[in-house]
C-alpha cells in the first residue's frame, strides 16, 4: 500500500530504448517520418538520464510528504478494487492536466518544464527530455490531494508511471493520425505535436496526459491543421547544446529578472512566461492575439523574441 510493487517506467525502459532504435532505423531506410540530430538527441537523452538521478534525490521528500498526507486521509480506498483504479485513472489524469497547464501558464513552474520543450525536434527521444528540477519546483504537491482523499501512495505512484509511459509513444511524427474515435478521446501523436509546436495558433494548447477530453472540456483543445505544419521548440529557441544551460537557463533568467527588477519580482516569478513589467516582452496570449488579429503582425513594437520569454 505504501511502496509500489512495480514501477511502470522502469519496466518500460527497455521498450523506450528499442522503440527509439526502431524509429531511427526506420527513418534511416525511409520507412518512417522521423528526424534525429545527434547533438539534439544527446541533450534529450542526457536530460532524461539526469532527470532519473534528480528524481531519486528528491524522492525522499516527495515520499515522506505523501505518506504524511495519507496518514491524515479522508477515506481508505482499497488497491484491489477495480472501481478504485478507474477512479484514480480519471483523477490522476485530471491532476496531470492541471499540473501541465500550470507548468505552461506560470513561470515558476515553466522554469522546470521548459526543458521538455526546448528541442526543435519531435521524436521519441524528445519524450525522454525531462526536467532536472521538477522536485524543486514542487509540482509533485498537486498529487497530494489524491493521498488525502485516500488513494494509497503506491497506487498513485503506479498510476503516475502508467501516465508517463502512455505519454512516451505520442512523441513521434511517424504516426500521423489514429482512428477518429481514438483521437476524440485520447491524447495522440497528432494532438501532442500541436502541444510541442511554436506556431502561434498552437501555443498553450493540448495539455492532456492520457485523455484529450480535459482539453475539450476546459477550452484548451486545438486540432493539428494540415495547413499549419508544426514548427517545434520554443518561441525563443536555444542557441546552445550546453547541457547545463539547457537544464538551468530559465531558472537563471528568472533570477536575473528578479534581481534587476525586485519591485516586480512576483510578476516575474508567478506571471505567465513572457510577462514583463514594462510590456516589452510577449506572453503566449499576446503572441496568439497578435498573430490571429486581422492586422496580423503589422505594427508590433514589442519583442516577439524578447529577452526572456521562451514559451512553447
Amino acid at each position, binding site marked *: 500500500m505504501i511502496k509500489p510493487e512495480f514501477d511502470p517506467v522502469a519496466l518500460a525502459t527497455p521498450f523506450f530504448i528499442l522503440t527509439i532504435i526502431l524509429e531511427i532505423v526506420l527513418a534511416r531506410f525511409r520507412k518512417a517520418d522521423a528526424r534525429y540530430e545527434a547533438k539534439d538527441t544527446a541533450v534529450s537523452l542526457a536530460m532524461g538520464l539526469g532527470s532519473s538521478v534528480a528524481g531519486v534525490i528528491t524522492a525522499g521528500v516527495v515520499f515522506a510528504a505523501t505518506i504524511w498526507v495519507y496518514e491524515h486521509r479522508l477515506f481508505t480506498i482499497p488497491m484491489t478494487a477495480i472501481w478504485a483504479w478507474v477512479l484514480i485513472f480519471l483523477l490522476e489524469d485530471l491532476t496531470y492536466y492541471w499540473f501541465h497547464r500550470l507548468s505552461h501558464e506560470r513561470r515558476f513552474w515553466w522554469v522546470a518544464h521548459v526543458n521538455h520543450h526546448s528541442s526543435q525536434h519531435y521524436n521519441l527521444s524528445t519524450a525522454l527530455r525531462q526536467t532536472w528540477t521538477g522536485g524543486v519546483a514542487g509540482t509533485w504537491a498537486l498529487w497530494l490531494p489524491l493521498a488525502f482523499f485516500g488513494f494509497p501512495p503506491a497506487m498513485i505512484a503506479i498510476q503516475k508511471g502508467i501516465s508517463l509511459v502512455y505519454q512516451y509513444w505520442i512523441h513521434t511524427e511517424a504516426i500521423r493520425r489514429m482512428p477518429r474515435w481514438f483521437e476524440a478521446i485520447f491524447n495522440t501523436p497528432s494532438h501532442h505535436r500541436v502541444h510541442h509546436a511554436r506556431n502561434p495558433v498552437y501555443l498553450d494548447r493540448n495539455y492532456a496526459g492520457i485523455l484529450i477530453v480535459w482539453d475539450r472540456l476546459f477550452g484548451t483543445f486545438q486540432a493539428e491543421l494540415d495547413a499549419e505544419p508544426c514548427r517545434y521548440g520554443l518561441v525563443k529557441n536555444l*542557441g546552445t547544446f550546453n547541457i547545463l544551460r539547457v537544464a538551468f537557463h530559465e531558472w537563471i533568467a528568472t533570477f536575473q529578472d528578479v534581481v534587476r527588477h525586485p519591485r516586480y519580482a512576483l510578476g516575474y516569478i508567478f506571471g505567465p512566461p513572457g510577462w514583463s513589467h514594462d510590456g516589452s516582452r510577449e506572453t503566449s496570449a499576446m503572441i496568439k492575439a497578435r498573430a490571429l488579429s486581422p492586422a496580423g503582425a503589422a505594427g508590433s513594437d514589442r519583442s516577439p523574441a524578447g529577452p526572456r520569454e521562451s514559451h512553447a
Partner: protein
Amino acid sequence: MNDEFFIQLAFSAAAVGALIALAAWAKIAKPVAPLDEYKARAMLAEEFPGRTVEAVWIASDGCGALAKSGALALVICRVGDGFAARQIPWGQAVSATFKNGRLSVNLGDIAAPTAVISLPSWPPQDLAA
C-alpha cells in the same frame, strides 16, 4: 542510492551512448540549405513579425544572418539542424568582435550566449553609427 541504482544508471548511460551513436550514423537530421537573402528575410519575418528589415548580411557559409531594424540588430544563427533568433541593440552588434572573417555577437542571453557569423567584413561603414 544503492548498488542496484548505480548498475541501472550505468546501463542506462551505455544505452544513451549507443543511441547517440546510432542517431549520428543514421544521418537523418533535417535537411538545412544554406541561408540566402530570400530565405533569411523569410526567416526574419517569421521570427520577428512586424519588424522592418533595412539591411541584411548573410553569413558566407549560409549558417546565419544579421539584419538592421531601426535601433535593433536581428540575429539568426544555426544551431544543429535548426536556427535560433535573437534581437539586440544595433550598437552591440556594431561593436561585436570581428576576427578572421568571423563575427562573434554577444547575444546577452543565457540560453543563447553567442552567435558566430562568417562575414567578409564588419562593421558596415555606412551603417556603423
